[in-house]
């Protein structure tokens, strides 16, 4: 049986942050490969480099300059992307879900979802497709149980509702890969379970590639594969 070609991979990733004069290495040669439609959990303690790996894979940050560090999407090294290609990669191919939701407080629920479509499409195209996009946003929010909350501001929503809005925003541009950084980290267990159920359902329905970063082994247990990260290095990769 041949190994499927990974859609997204990071090889020999290094990342060092500077704190004043001190250099803090966060990733030290970590490698990861994720196949199309796979759900992968990165499990690790706080400070192990999970979020940094997610940022590198999502094109939000760049690995340290090194001969062999590379993030590859569909076989192309994203380091070779131009600035506009990198922006398009984040807007079109990747969806981010953050631990603290990161919704825009001035916008209501539907606007928070549509803003991702506005960023992706240029002005004219967005206006041309705004009915379809709005309908799509309403559909996703409906599927996530938020039909009655479209006009509410983030401050008027519960933590679980906010995270579901963030998931809807990540999905509106129909990305290939969804990167979730501790999506239940700020929620109680029951709410977190509901959010994970919703994520899993959407992943199956859309055949999404899902990468979840978590320190909770119960969350990780839902994934097809679990990668353990320790001190910036992958120590174990287990398949469910």
């Amino acid at each position, binding site marked *: 049986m041949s190994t499927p070609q990974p859609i997204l991979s990071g090889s020999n990733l290094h990342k060092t942050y500077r704190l004043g004069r001190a250099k803090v290495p966060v990733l030290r040669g970590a490698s990861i490969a994720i196949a199309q439609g796979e759900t992968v959990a990165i499990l690790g303690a706080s400070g192990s480099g999970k979020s940094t790996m997610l*940022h590198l894979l999502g094109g939000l940050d760049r690995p340290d300059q090194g001969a062999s560090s590379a993030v590859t999407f569909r076989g192309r090294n994203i380091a070779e992307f131009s600035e*506009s290609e990198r*922006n398009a*990669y984040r*807007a079109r191919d990747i969806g981010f879900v*953050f631990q603290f939701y*990161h919704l*825009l407080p001035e916008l209501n629920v539907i606007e928070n979802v549509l*803003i991702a479509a506005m*960023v992706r499409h240029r002005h004219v195209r967005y206006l041309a497709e705004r009915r379809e996009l709005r309908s799509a946003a309403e559909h996703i929010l409906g599927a996530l149980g938020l039909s009655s909350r479209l006009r509410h501001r983030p401050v008027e929503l519960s933590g679980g509702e906010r995270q579901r809005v963030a998931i809807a925003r990540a999905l509106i541009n129909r990305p290939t890969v969804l990167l979730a950084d501790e999506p239940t980290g700020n929620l109680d267990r029951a709410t977190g379970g509901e959010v994970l159920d919703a994520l899993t359902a959407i992943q199956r329905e859309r055949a999404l590639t899902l990468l979840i970063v978590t320190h909770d082994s119960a969350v990780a247990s839902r994934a097809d594969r679990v990668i353990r990260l320790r001190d910036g290095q992958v120590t174990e990769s287990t398949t469910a």
Partner: protein
Amino acid sequence: MYQTLLSRRYLTGKVMPLMAALAVALCSAMVLITWSVMGGFLKMMLEAGRMQIGDVVISWPSRGFAHYDELVRRLEADQDHPTDPLIVAASPMIETAAMITLPGGAIKPIRLRGVDPESYQRVTRYAQTLHWRPIEQPTRYDRFGEDYRLQPSTTYPLPVPSPAADETNAQQVARVLRLRNDEILRILDRHGLSWGLIYDNGLSMTRRNDDTGERRPAIVLGIELSRQNERKRSFYFSRRPFVLNEHGNATLQDVFLPANGTVSVTFFPTSEKGTLVDSVTRVLPVANEFKTGIYEIDDNTALTRLDVVQAVLYMNEARRTVGGGIGVRPDGTPYVLPSTEIVDPARVTSVLVLGVSADRLADIYERCRAIYADFAADHPDVPRPEVMMIQTWEDLNRTFIDAVRNEMGLVLIVFTFISLTAVFLVWAIFWSMVSEKTKDIGILRALGASRRGIAGLWLSYAAAIGLTGICVGLLLAHVIVWNINAIQDTLGRTFNIQIWNPEVYYFIDIPSSVDPRSAVFVAAGGILACLLGALVPAIRASRMDPVRALRFE
């Protein structure tokens, strides 16, 4: 697209950007108000200058020059120019200094102009400046219709209402005004006058003698000259019920100048060498009063008929005999010497010329020079063309006009510099807002927004603030400029503050119109200032590391 949405939400969701918009509004309003008033002042000056003397003045002061009626004919014949007629009308004038003695005994120096009423009206807007005339609608600020001129004397006697027990304030005002108007109308009625007749008197510069019924040459005074007219808060002129004597004491009177008022004018004829020959005093009835709106003119100028001034200044046609007398022959017998009668033609000091358009001033000037040169060639007794003073109204007022232009430029530069504080205010507010919205910037970058898009967000936000501020500022400026005279009036009445002193600024009313081009320029400048203020914060926002921005607390 997201820039538009977020700009709108940031603008309405925070107090700080509204403060920035307010700063832009105040600065743009300040610049536009200054520009409008100063620009309006200059425009009024230019228009008023032309309105008073036409486009070109051909003058030989004091001594005057002869054959002016022929010069006027030659100038007006330019209307028949085969290809390019430039001159519309011409009018002779004598301008001289005189002293006037007003009712009550007050004496003041004036500039007296002797004019031919008919041609003077063609060259200047004299007819429109005559103040005492029938009017059908109250003037702009005359809310209660207090202006005398609204009521024809033919309705006299008016029933004078007595105060009612339940009289309201408005009814009381109306009743008091009716009583006051009655007093004037009673004077008009006593002399068989109406506003229409007084207007006609002004046009002809004559007034009918009540006793003989003959029309006599009369004088037309500037509206501020006699101090008999009180400019009311509602911007109409009311007759003072008293006069000031030479000691400044007030005496009650029953005179309304255009109806039964007379003044004494003392003229000072000079010799050919310019020395004082004599002084001549004439009592002249007042035909009407004029209001040019230029305080200096309205306060110290009077007009009367040209022939009156020519006569008293010895500038009218005179016949003299040269030679004659008794001679003695060598043999001792007397004989009568031959004599010749010489006619000294009448003279004027100026001929005013009105051209087809103020835009062709240079051409009109050149045409006047050419016509005068031909005229002088035929008349050796007039000043040579090279020494004759031929000036445009701009030349005559150049020093003053240039001073006002420079002053306007200087004030605008100063206010523009002051307005630059708005740029720094916008800068500070945007710097603070970019810091506050760091996480939003990180989110948008995570969603795929480009650096340029982020910069565009803040610049479009600045443009929105600028546009809001400019709209408010322009509206504010228009409201203030349109009502600037009423505002001054209210300030004067409430706090006794006079912003616009007509004795300093020449015009009685503050210019109250906004030039659309100035408004567009100020609007563009305001938005540009906002963009300039937001530029550095926008660049800062665009350069933010998205990962750091997302972690920002």
